[in-house]
């Protein structure tokens, strides 16, 4: 039985960075590491304060109130920032922690057959160290980096996918500076995490509920044995909103036993080992991840909103666009206009970027007569657009896909309204 610690901080201002930290604390994260930079510094800053590191006073209501409560409850938190010197070191430190599976947790999301697919090659299964109802578990780990860290740490991040299922329980938070405010590049890290690393990737949309995405992704991805990435843009990172901040912290995860079980077959990344793993990854693991993400689409803080029984249009609003779509929903006149323009569509409001929840989409396509799909996403990769195209081609559905994304984050300087953009984008 999981031990849950409830802490009510009351109504307070909370930023996107604090919301990501909140999700990690609710998941019971024990190890936090970073080599941050704008816009994501405050995620690790929050952890450093909570861990009472010198030089990081608890100087805002969030860390002051939460820190006191965590101290009282004996919450175990390791925070490493400045001493790690760069992103590859931070990610390597995270990797060193995540391979230590000294404890176990009950199997909740996967079937015994799926357990075999993911864990069948591990020492836990081969030597019957655990039953099929038990998942090997270690500390939950959060590593935060700014978008450039995705480049410098790519070596480590890509290696993480060669040691599945050991990275389960690791979240990499990336702050994307798509408007080039404090970086030498304007970058869309979705393309790195989703396509290059093939890591489940989310883009959170609001400080009020970003913690739900983070916390629940920890639950699911830990069991699937994969690391996952959470991306936020500049606006999301710094925007302060008022929210009721009630924590429900998984103390069982935080208090897991330390330990290590040697499994060189899975943890040695040299040619003879990784060749069959790569094959298994493409052939079995990615389809399984797609399946489980489809099954748990709403659990992962995504929504399917149907405006009619048999819609002909599908609108995908991801990340920052989802926030503006929520604004449309909250305004009766705007919602009416939206419905008229898109002919009572079905809307996928998602934080999930990759993998595409193909089962959810397939069900919608089979039950409706969708002939047009509009994809609203931020960033130059147009990743969700291409994934949707791929889905339609693979399944031979008769529909057009319209790219309505914005390649960078224009909001801060250009006062660009995504509401107007959404409204004007219907054919």
């Amino acid at each position: 039985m999981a031990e849950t610690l409830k802490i009510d901080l009351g109504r307070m201002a909370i930023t996107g960075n604090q919301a990501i930290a909140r999700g990690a604390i609710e998941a019971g994260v024990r190890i936090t590491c970073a080599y941050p930079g704008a816009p994501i510094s405050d995620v690790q800053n929050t952890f450093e304060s909570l861990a009472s590191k010198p030089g990081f006073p608890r100087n805002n209501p969030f860390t002051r109130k939460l820190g006191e409560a965590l101290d009282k409850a004996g919450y175990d938190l390791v925070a490493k920032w400045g001493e790690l010197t760069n992103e590859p070191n931070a990610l390597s430190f995270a990797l060193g922690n995540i391979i230590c599976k000294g404890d176990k947790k009950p199997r909740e999301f996967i079937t015994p057959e799926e357990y075999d697919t993911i864990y069948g090659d591990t020492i836990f299964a081969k030597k019957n160290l655990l039953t099929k109802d038990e998942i090997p578990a270690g500390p939950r780990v959060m590593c935060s980096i700014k978008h450039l860290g995705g480049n410098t740490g790519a070596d480590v991040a890509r290696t993480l996918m060669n040691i599945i299922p050991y990275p389960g329980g690791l979240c990499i938070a990336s702050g994307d500076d798509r408007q080039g405010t404090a970086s030498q590049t304007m970058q869309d890290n979705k393309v790195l995490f989703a396509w290059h690393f093939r890591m489940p990737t989310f883009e959170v949309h609001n400080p009020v509920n970003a913690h739900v995405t983070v916390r629940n992704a920890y639950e699911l991805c830990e069991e699937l044995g994969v690391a996952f990435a959470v991306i936020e843009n500049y606006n999301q990172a710094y925007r302060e909103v008022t929210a009721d901040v009630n924590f429900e912290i998984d103390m069982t995860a935080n208090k897991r036993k330390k330990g290590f079980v040697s499994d060189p077959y899975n943890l040695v990344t040299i040619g003879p080992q990784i060749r069959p793993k790569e094959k298994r990854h493409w052939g079995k693991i990615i389809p399984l991840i797609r399946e489980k993400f489809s099954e748990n689409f709403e659990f992962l803080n995504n929504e399917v909103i149907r405006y009619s029984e048999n819609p002909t249009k599908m609108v995908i609003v991801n990340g920052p666009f989802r926030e503006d779509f929520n604004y449309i929903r909250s305004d009766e006149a705007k919602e009416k206009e939206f419905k008229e323009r898109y002919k009572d569509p079905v809307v996928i409001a998602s934080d999930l970027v990759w993998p595409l929840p193909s089962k959810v989409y397939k069900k919608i396509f089979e039950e409706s007569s969708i002939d047009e799909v509009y994809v609203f996403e931020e960033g130059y990769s147009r990743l969700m657009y291409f994934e949707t195209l791929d889905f339609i081609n693979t399944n031979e559905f008769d529909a057009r896909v319209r790219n309505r994304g914005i390649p960078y984050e224009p909001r801060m300087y250009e006062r660009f309204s995504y509401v107007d953009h959404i409204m004007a984008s219907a054919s």
Partner: protein
Amino acid sequence: MVAVAIPKPEERTIKRPVSNCPGCGATKVSMALKEGLRRYNKENKAKLKLLYVADRGCGNLQGWHEYGIVDTITNMGMAPMVALGAKYSSGGLENNYMVVCASGDGAYNFNINGMKIAAQDPPSMYIIYDNYAIRMTGGQIGLINEYEIEGKAIGFEVYFINPYRYEENAEVFKGLIGEYLNNKAIMVVADGTCSRDLRAQLRDQGVKLGTFIRREDCKDVVYQKERERIAKENPEKLKEMPPFKCRLCGIRLRCQALLENDPSRCYNCGACAHYDCESLTCAEPNLAMVTEHPKKYIEVFKRMQGDD
């Protein structure tokens, strides 16, 4: 006709052992570490376990197949930080884990700041397999490392070992484990681990090195003769006999020349002369006979040969 199951390509590659050169100094160091830990545990009635984190490099590839030394191999330069992370979440000494990191000289340069971080968070033990080249990618000459100065500057106590002196190194590691338990940051430099390079260098200078010699009473030799006799007298009985008797020297020193009793494959490292078996010697000169640094003593060899 009996159907023979042909293994799938991935099964064949998985089962194919990673082979190091017979004289490889790196393999002897990792085996000496394991032996040192065994001796420490025995003498101190301790239950220390080894958690061995390695970078990619020929010094570390051998570890897991037949000897079970290496627990994880990741990319060049990652190992110091992976080891640090593993120390935090394995429980470290609380759970009797001694976390040891091993890198080549190339990986050391790749992430020297990772080493610095590790030195500032003791206890830590870092083994550098120094072969003076980036051997895995073709033998390019890397940066010159002055470990004595650099290691001390970043916070390590630095020790040099001759990789070919197995017995001596096992004792050195036994002692260093005590230092590790005293919360020290230790760097062990195995100087001149590539016997192949060293031999070639000496050969270019006209130096001929000696090869291993087994005495007639070596269990393997005796057993081999017995097998040959039975093969002549009763070939059917031969099938019931195992192919070897002892082979401990070959296994401990990870030497295919010894395992196959084939002097033509010997790289003249001389480790067998320092292995605790009376049946085994090595003709001098060899790489193990130099006092500390094989690489630095090549000039000495040259002079010795000139004197002869």
